[in-house]
């Protein structure tokens, strides 16, 4: 027996037990567990199907309607008329087909919501990751910058940005930056907290011990393990950003010259007494869309959190 061998004598009369690893057990990791949990929940499937339908509608609205939402298809003669063959939801004040405007309006909501979410998430991810991982003065500076942006409600900031921009330059990208550029602070806080947690893990120390640079460690070991809450926040903020777009359109500082649910709802306000349906249908479309994304975020949050799963 060499000197390096480590031997613990078994207590007399006791059988030597070796911890067994069950080889045939199901493979398991955070994402697989989450998937197994999610696919059993009807809420997940409902939300996913609704979200997919809306995304498809935003990409190819022609699949859902063959009536044009603007131009010649709008006959003032049909103003505020009820449902007719080929026009399931009737007509709005301008005599445009409401269903067609809902189908085409999904494009504005989804693109602005998606872009704003990507912008907000990317800025938040970079700021939060750098602050959490490097700590020290980097953390102090970035966190204070985050605090500044956190102090200004993003819709109010976006109102100011959108009034600054002349009407003909209010493009999708500008609007997305106005919303995303001011809503990243909460993402950054969550990412920072998550990075701080993961940083303590043994595999991070192992990575440093193996000689990986700080940046490589951040990119290949810390970030992939902090991504779960980020995905949850991104899904939830997609819903919130769609609401933000509609609020801005409602206040008259949204996109100019595009079909938007928020703008349609705001337009219908004046005929609420005579034609309430032209207000109710776009509101319903907006609510269902936002609800789908928020539910998806909720289900993801529940399923990705082992503690919450165990509590149920």
């Amino acid at each position, binding site marked *: 027996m060499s000197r390096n061998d480590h031997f613990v004598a078994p207590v007399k009369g006791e059988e030597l037990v070796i911890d067994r690893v069950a080889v045939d057990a199901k493979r398991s990791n955070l994402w697989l567990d989450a998937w197994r949990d999610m696919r059993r929940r009807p809420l997940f499937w409902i939300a996913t199907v609704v979200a997919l339908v809306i995304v498809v509608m935003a990409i190819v609205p022609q699949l859902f309607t063959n009536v044009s939402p603007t131009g010649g298809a709008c006959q003032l003669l049909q103003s505020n008329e009820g449902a007719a063959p080929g026009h399931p939801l009737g007509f709005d004040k301008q005599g445009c087909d409401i269903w067609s405007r809902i189908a085409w309006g999904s494009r504005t909501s989804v693109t602005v919501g998606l872009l704003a979410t990507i912008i907000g998430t990317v800025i938040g991810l970079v700021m939060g990751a750098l602050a959490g991982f490097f700590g020290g003065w980097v953390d102090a500076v970035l966190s204070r910058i985050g605090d500044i942006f956190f*102090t200004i409600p993003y819709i109010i900031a976006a109102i100011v940005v959108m009034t600054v921009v002349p009407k003909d330059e209010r493009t999708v990208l500008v609007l997305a930056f106005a919303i995303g550029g001011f809503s990243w602070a909460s993402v950054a806080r969550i990412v920072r907290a998550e990075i701080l947690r993961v940083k303590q893990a043994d595999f991070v120390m192992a990575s440093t011990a193996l000689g990986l640079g700080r940046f490589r460690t951040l990119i290949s070991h810390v970030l992939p393990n902090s991504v779960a809450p980020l995905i949850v926040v991104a899904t939830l903020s997609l819903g919130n950003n769609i609401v933000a777009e509609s609020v801005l359109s409602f206040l008259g500082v949204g996109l100019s010259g595009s079909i938007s649910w928020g703008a349609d709802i705001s337009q219908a306000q004046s005929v*609420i007494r005579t034609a309430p349906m032209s207000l109710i249908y776009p509101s319903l479309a907006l609510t269902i869309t936002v609800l789908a994304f928020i539910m998806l975020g909720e289900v993801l949050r529940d399923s990705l959190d082992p503690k919450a799963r165990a509590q149920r």
Partner: protein
Amino acid sequence: MLFYILKRILQVIPVFLGATLLIYFMVFAMPGDPIAALFGDKQPPDALLDQIRAEYLLDQPFIVQYLHYLGGIFRLDFGTTFGGQDVIDVLARTFPVTLRLAVEAVAMAFVLAIVIGALSAFFKNTWFDHTMLVVSLIFVAIPIFVVGFFAQYFIGVKLGWASPTVGENNGWLGLILPAITLAFSIYATSMRLTRSSTIETLGQDWVRTAYGKGLPRRRVIPVHVLRNSLIPMITDLGTQFGVLMVGATVTEAIFNIPGVGNTLYLAIIKHEAPTIVSFVTVFVVLYVIINLLIDLLYGLLDPRIRYVS
């Protein structure tokens, strides 16, 4: 505690300077000439325009305007609107209305949120809990202006239980309908927070101990459970303040309430830069102060906070 207070106050200073600078910069970048716009079709001679510009310091470089404005804030001088009124006077007139609206909304939302949230926690995973969670999600998903229009249409116009617009009738009673609308926007978050923190408290050792030493439910729940699980609600009020400000702007626009939010909205439409800056600044200053107070209160209520940080 003194160290904690000092530290929190020192942390607030850069945030305050940064936020005001950011707002001022954004509005400074606004295109168009607000003075020329003020006169509409009949343009006065350039000399007069320049004189008015100088009066509002619009001919000075950005940093001079900003410092002048910052100095004003500390003297509680928020400048004058383009209509010639002191912003502080406009605030004095509009702020009480918005405060009434906000207090009414927060009170309604919080009472309902605490009751439903606590009940959901006690009856965790029953049909009641599931229903209330889905309802709260729906509340999150409905944009506030949709709630506002529906309240205005069904309760105000159809049923006639309350006036669809508020106008001058902005006492506690007159503001009920808009306050319900505003309450919608903060109810869901608060209710879910109450639920999760109550569930957490219910699992604590001291609750088991309380039951173990034979205390009845009617004593354990208010004294040992609710009092502890309601502390996070205080922080919640601070973070929800932003939602409340946006909500107040939209609600006041819909119901035509002469409050701060409505004034801000009208100023934005009219491109009245100084008025916008003043009102957004007031929002931000309030936000900073309220969150500072809440943090201090929190430190007072929960010793763990002030020692850890």
